[in-house]
């Protein structure tokens, strides 16, 4: 009996460990992240497991995250999956692909209230990506699938501002 209990505990804790980079948030948390007064360059990708071009480009962001791990660059993957599919779709997706980057499911369906706060040029289609650096007052927004070369080129324009990194 005790053995079973320990076994279950181990399973539960291991699930938590593999999914600790994934959480549900409201837009204000994303906004706070965007507005951090920092010299770090933030790469925020808006995606969903149901969006084919998003899934197609996602490895580029994971690759970017590891390529710049010793630079002041942070990748945040904001998922627009259905909140009811958090456990059934998003978590298994992240675990299967062993995604280590931060993944936030944005559970805030009043899109009209926040899309413009990300970027006023955003029509609302995904994939969409925002790269910003508040210290350098730099911000770039794209509403299309990005290749690794495009993404890398974009991010390098941000960090080339600071050679001391």
């Amino acid at each position: 009996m005790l053995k079973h209990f320990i076994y279950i505990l181990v399973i539960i804790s291991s699930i938590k460990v593999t999914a600790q980079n994934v959480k549900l948030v409201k837009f204000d948390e994303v906004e706070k992240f965007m507005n951090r007064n920092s010299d770090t360059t933030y790469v925020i990708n808006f995606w969903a497991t149901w969006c084919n071009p998003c899934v197609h480009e996602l490895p580029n962001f994971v690759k970017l995250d590891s390529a710049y791990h010793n630079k002041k660059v942070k990748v945040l993957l904001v998922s627009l999956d259905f909140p009811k599919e958090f456990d059934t779709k998003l978590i298994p997706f992240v675990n299967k692909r062993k995604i280590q980057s931060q993944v936030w499911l944005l559970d805030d369906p009043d899109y009209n209230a926040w899309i413009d706060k990300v970027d006023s040029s955003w029509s609302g289609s995904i994939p969409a990506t925002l790269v910003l650096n508040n210290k350098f007052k730099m911000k770039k927004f794209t509403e299309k699938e990005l290749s690794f070369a495009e993404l890398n080129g974009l991010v390098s324009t941000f960090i080339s501002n600071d050679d001391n990194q």
Partner: protein
Amino acid sequence: MKQKFRKMITLAVMPVLALLVMTSAKSPSEGYKVGDNARDFTLKNIDGSMVSLSNYNLATKGAIVIFTCNHCPVAQAYQDRIIALNNKYQSQGYPVIAINSNDAEAVTADSYENMKLRAKEKGFNFPYLIDQTQEIATAYGATKTPHVFVLQKEGNAFKVKYIGAIDDNKDDASAVKHKYVETAVNELLAGKQVSQNFTKAIGCGIKWKTASASSN
């Protein structure tokens, strides 16, 4: 010295790169704004007939043109609400006209044959048209599914009165606070100006035909 040279190169290259990024970030079409006249179209319906704004005799006062598709989960979440919109407003002169502009080469689920199947399955009670050349989505400036354009008939012209989302909650129809399209059509029927004539929402990007394989 080397460091300085690198910095100089970076400084020289940066504006070029920035410009490239800005150009590529531009959406595929500027499209319509509220107040513009919407162009007519003649597109094939799932029953094989051709449907135009001008020849669709149920569109006596206007039309609710909705760019949608089969495969997109957001579009799917709205299927029943689109049927309900047509049930409510067709008899009042604002029928729904649904248009699928996705490239079926990229997404086979959005092929003409599959449109017929979906319409039958769901009991679509409105035209479901195929925009094979994507000319209409481009002209209207539709970027995603679903994407709604409420048009009001003025003489022979169809004026754009509302652009955007159906409502403010794709996840739960019962939790909707603002029924944008219903409010807009109700206001038009009452002879008023549309109070909120533009909204934004997350949707699946329209799958444009492209030489590269990047759009799917």
